[in-house]
């Protein structure tokens, strides 16, 4: 998802800002988040024992979650940059036109549903793999 955002943002950034990339606070924090995710995946793959990998990556995840927050609030914390402030807020009426506002809400809902579907799918997959591994270990014992 982070990769999609970086790619499509770069494509849109060219006509809007005249560049594919700039060291804008949100872009930079998002790039850091992407690199963090790569590190998370690399750590998970690098450790052979699943339980140890789960323990280590959970610690890394807690530490790294700050990057997600940093990315979310980058435009509020640092005013300079290409990105505008938040478009959707809980307190103010959105300034964007209805023809964009409702598709945006539908897209957000769709992404949230996709996210939960994938999380559940992959959680079930890992439970099955662990159970299969345990059964095989018992059979071979």
């Amino acid at each position, binding site marked *: *998802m982070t*990769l*999609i955002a970086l*790619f*499509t943002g770069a*494509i*849109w950034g*060219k*006509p809007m800002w005249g560049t594919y990339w700039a060291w804008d606070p949100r872009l930079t924090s998002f790039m850091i988040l992407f690199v963090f995710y790569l590190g998370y995946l690399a750590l998970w793959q690098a450790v052979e024992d699943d339980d140890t990998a789960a323990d280590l990556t959970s610690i890394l995840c807690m530490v790294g979650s700050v990057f997600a927050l940093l990315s979310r609030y980058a435009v509020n914390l640092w005013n300079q940059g290409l990105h505008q402030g938040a478009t959707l807020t809980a307190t103010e009426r959105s300034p964007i036109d209805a*023809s964009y506002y409702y598709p945006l809400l539908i897209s957000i809902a769709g992404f949230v549903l*996709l996210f939960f579907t*994938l999380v559940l*799918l*992959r959680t*079930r*997959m*890992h439970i*099955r*793999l662990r*159970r*299969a*591994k345990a*059964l*095989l270990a*018992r*059979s071979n014992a």
Partner: protein
Amino acid sequence: MIPDLGKYAADVLSAYAVALLLLVGLVVLSVRQAAKARAALTQAEQQDKT
């Protein structure tokens, strides 16, 4: 359905294409891995019974 994108049509449509490609890839990969895990569990359960 899609409004007139004017001079931004190529940028918008290519962004849609990249996003769709990566999303479909992610979903296909997840579904295939899930199917493999299910098959592995079924096989392990059968092996455990025998």
